[in-house]
């Protein structure tokens, strides 16, 4: 579903944020992307959204090569991907309903369908009752769940999250991760950037670790709590980061 083939990203200021990263994520997989702050996690997600373009190597999303994707095609790529951010990124001057409805309005759905899908998405994150509220009147955890509802309302094939629990306490974080797991179980390819290692360890999913922009570890976790099969790559020392 998502393929990185020897991808490097150098920002215009010369900073090398990703170097020679190759990763493959299958349809319906749930993968954690970890690494210290500055390791390149956000950059990797941005490449999938075409918020940035790779300096070299190839990124494929749902079979589409992003290197040859035109500027005008970008919105249509983004409609296939749901994103959740650390700070919920909700519009405070609109109701919860209108926030969640936004991707559907953009994609040109009819009012009837919008109504139905928004209800369904809010029900999945357990917030149907807050539909008419302003996001300002919700707790941090609830706001983050509204953000998730907005990300999944258009039934994307891919769900990306950048530090979705960064501002939440452990109990709320667990709730949020639970919701992601449910989506991955119905076939949504889910990639979550997080440095909350404790939480990640408990959830037992494949974990991709970046260090100074390079792939450091790509760990498969087998089901019933078996020892993880670690696949640590050799790291060439570099002074970047």
């Amino acid at each position, binding site marked *: 579903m998502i393929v990185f083939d020897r991808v490097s990203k150098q920002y215009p200021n010369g900073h090398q944020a990703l170097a020679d990263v190759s990763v493959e994520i299958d349809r319906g997989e749930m993968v954690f992307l970890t690494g210290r702050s500055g390791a390149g996690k956000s950059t990797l997600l*941005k490449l999938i*959204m075409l*918020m940035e373009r790779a300096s070299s190597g190839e990124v494929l999303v749902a079979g*589409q*090569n992003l290197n*040859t*994707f*035109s500027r*005008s*095609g970008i*919105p*249509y*790529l*983004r*409609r*296939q991907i749901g*994103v959740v951010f650390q700070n919920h*990124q909700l*519009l405070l001057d609109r109701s919860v309903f209108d926030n969640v409805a*936004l*991707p559907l*309005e*953009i*994609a*040109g*759905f*009819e*009012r009837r369908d919008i109504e139905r899908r928004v209800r369904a998405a809010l029900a999945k994150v357990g917030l149907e009752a807050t539909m008419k509220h302003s996001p300002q009147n919700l707790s941090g955890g609830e706001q983050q769940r509204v953000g998730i509802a*907005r990300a999944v309302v*258009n039934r994307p094939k891919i769900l990306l999250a950048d530090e979705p629990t960064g501002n939440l306490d452990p109990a709320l974080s667990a709730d949020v991760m639970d919701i992601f797991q449910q989506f991955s179980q119905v076939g949504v390819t889910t990639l979550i950037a997080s440095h909350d290692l404790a939480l990640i360890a408990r959830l037992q999913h494949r974990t991709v670790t970046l260090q100074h922009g390079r792939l450091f570890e790509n760990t498969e976790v087998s089901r019933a709590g078996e020892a993880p099969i670690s696949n640590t790559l050799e790291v060439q020392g570099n002074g970047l980061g």
Partner: protein
Amino acid sequence: MADASRRGASQASVGFREQLRSYYSHHWLTFTESWRRLWATPMSTLLTWLLVGVALSLPSGLYLLLSNAESLRQDWQGTAQISLYLDSSASIEAGETLALELSQRTAVQSAHYLSSEQALQEFEQLSGMVGIISGFDENPIPASIAVILVQSDQLPALSQQLVQELAELELVDEAQLDQQWLERLYQLMQLLERLAWALAILLSVAIVLIIGNTIRLSIENRRAEILIVKLTGGTNAYVQRPFIYYGFLFGLGGGLSCMLILAAVYIWIQPPLQALSVAYGGDFGLQGPGLLDAILLILVSSALGVAGAWVAVYRHLRGIEPE
């Protein structure tokens, strides 16, 4: 590749027919939403309308004045007068007889004889210089006949012909068609017309910039929203649509406020204008803008608003990309 993926994406989620219907309904929604937002800040909206209206009222007011002057000029072009200056040897009787003869002609409405004494008296009265000319041995002002021609469409050609014919008469020293002032008026009007155009162009640029700046501010205010819309798959066309509508509404309101300003000025200058008209025994009145003028004005002003919106969108909205 991008095109294929775009088509693929839109077909997968929504049917074409539905999408088209939704496209129009989104236009309508955006339009009403833009309207609602403008009214959320009534003071600044009204001020923008007023500003645009004032800027528009200068060239359009001048244009109105000119088109009135043009119709007056055309009316007056019809009332040509020929002055015949008589030879000093011509007696008063001969002059009066000639005037009578001339007034019999079909092309002539009236012909008045003015002896050189009468002309002198009139001059002294008008100039207030009594007795100055009596210092001359002889009265220097010639006797004259004022010939007023009958109104007709062929008057310009006809009057030229008549002037030449009358100049040949034995008693006549010189024949003059009194249209010079009309020509001067025409030249003045051409000057004013160019001035009106220059004003119109300058103020159009000003209006585009005013509206562009107002829209730049509202783009800045909605930056967060624009970023989220772009992140969730909003096209440039989708993101800029409300701002184009802002521009249109600013222009439309500006055009309407210009109409109100012109109407107010029109009403305000009516009384002195009527007094003037009466004093000149004329029946001229000022024509207000016609329906066609009004529609044209509002179209132009709306177009300027949309142009301002495009300027703002190109300079400020295209650059807002999520990072």
